[in-house]
């Protein structure tokens, strides 16, 4: 009971997770700045940003529902924090687990995007509306390939006749006994990683919050606490997404503290790749994003699954 509470509130989920998310965000911003030949922010920058936003006035814009305006940020953060309970954070066993939690986690991760979209759609500001439209369009673009890519390791294990499961805790244990799925399923790994960037609205998929076109996208009207909760939810989602991709594609989780350190190092390595991609690629227009995912992303995933089936038949 006490152990559950500590797990839930402090470590690995809860406050510890939020702090880790803010640190990951700092790594992201610092590396991006270094790649752009700048010095970059100090290590406590995301903490100062979040604290400042929490301490500011929250303006409720006229014409939107007061209840939804206050509830959506809370729901977004709750969704991200709940999704974190089922993934092996920092290489430790998931806090909670039940059969089928892989699917539930993927849907919980979408809750943040849904909440941001709804938050934009229910204010009367034109920039919020344009941003919300783009959030939903982008979601329908990357969501299917992303989910299929994250389900691929389980399907591959099933087709190979190995012990497989829709339960993340069991799946990552059996993945630990296999060669890295990064090597055996390289195509879906790339789709999963790039899909994660789409989910987090990182460049080149930052059309929903394109500053030069639509101010701040769906969150234009948010100030103070609402904005702080959304940015915390983004930070948590960054950790959860990196953890999930690492656990499924980079060798699952091992036992002991050293394995946990190694796992965390792997997530930072993935973050490095994500930052390099952010630096290299310019923002895509929303129609280019949709084209990329439906013409290329989903076809690539299906090709990988076809390859799996062919190997299965030949064997």
């Amino acid at each position, binding site marked *: 009971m006490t152990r559950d509470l500590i797990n839930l509130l402090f470590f690995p989920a809860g406050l510890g997770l939020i702090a880790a998310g803010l640190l990951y965000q700092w790594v992201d*911003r610092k590396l991006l*700045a270094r790649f*752009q*030949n*700048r*010095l*970059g*922010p*100090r290590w*406590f*920058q995301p*903490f*100062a*940003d979040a*604290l*400042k936003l929490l*301490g*500011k*006035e*929250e*303006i409720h814009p006229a014409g939107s529902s007061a209840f939804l305006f206050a509830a959506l940020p809370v729901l977004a953060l709750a969704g991200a924090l709940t999704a974190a309970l089922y993934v092996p954070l920092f290489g430790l066993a998931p806090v909670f687990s039940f059969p089928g939690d892989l699917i539930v986690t993927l849907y919980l991760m979408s809750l943040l995007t849904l909440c941001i979209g709804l938050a934009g759609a229910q204010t009367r500001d034109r*920039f919020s509306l344009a941003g919300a439209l783009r959030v939903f369009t982008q979601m329908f673009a990357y969501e299917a390939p992303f989910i299929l890519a994250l389900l691929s390791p389980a399907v591959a294990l099933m087709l190979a006749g190995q012990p497989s499961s829709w339960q993340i805790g069991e799946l990552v244990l059996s993945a630990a006994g296999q060669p890295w799925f990064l090597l055996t399923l390289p195509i879906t790994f790339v789709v999963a990683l790039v899909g994660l960037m789409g989910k987090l609205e990182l460049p080149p998929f930052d059309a929903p919050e394109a*500053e030069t076109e639509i*101010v*701040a996208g769906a*969150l*234009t*009207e*948010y*100030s*103070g606490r609402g*904005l702080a909760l959304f940015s915390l939810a983004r930070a948590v989602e960054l950790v959860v997404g990196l953890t999930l991709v690492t656990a499924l594609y980079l060798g699952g989780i091992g036992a002991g503290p050293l394995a946990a350190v190694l796992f965390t190092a792997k997530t930072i390595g993935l973050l490095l790749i994500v930052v390099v991609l952010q630096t290299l690629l310019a923002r895509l227009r929303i129609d280019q994003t949709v084209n990329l995912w439906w013409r290329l992303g989903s076809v690539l995933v299906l090709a990988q699954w076809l390859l799996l089936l062919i190997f299965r038949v030949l064997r």
Partner: protein
Amino acid sequence: MDTITTQSPPRWRTMLDRLRNWSLANSPWLVHYNSGSCNGCDIEILATLTPRYDLERLGVKLQGSPRHADVLVCTGPVTRQSADRLRRIYDQMPEPKFVVAVGACSISGGAFRGCYNILGGVDEVIPVDVYVPGCAPRPEAIIHGVAVLLKKLQPDRAEEIDRLLVEAGAVVGEEEGIDEPNAELLGAR
């Protein structure tokens, strides 16, 4: 923010206030509005935000939405047309908020003072916290203006901020030195 209290506030209250001031001073997000400037100051502000000076290392970020911003950076004199817009942007910002007026025109109207379509400086419309003189002020002057604002927020860290400015190559404490020749000049007249 200023409240009149008859007794000193409880300890947790001062602690929270210090924490809030610390986070405000370490993460000032800007929104930039040009109420009739010739664009000279705007270009200097953009130069201040480029990698050459990299204000993100101090937590400064340029935001698009006034709802996300803490500091309104104004340039240029206020024209009669833009006065309403300037006031509306100021009203859209959440408390606590600060205004920095950059350039001679935003202080007094500058070269445009007395024109039929000019109201005057920014402080004709909204309260201003820091004035940065110059036509156009160099990026160093704008950074110094922001540092003055930060010193106002955290008076007990003023010396540290001064030291950081000196390390960055600024000459601090010359305000008195500037005043003296002016006094002599006036006396001579």
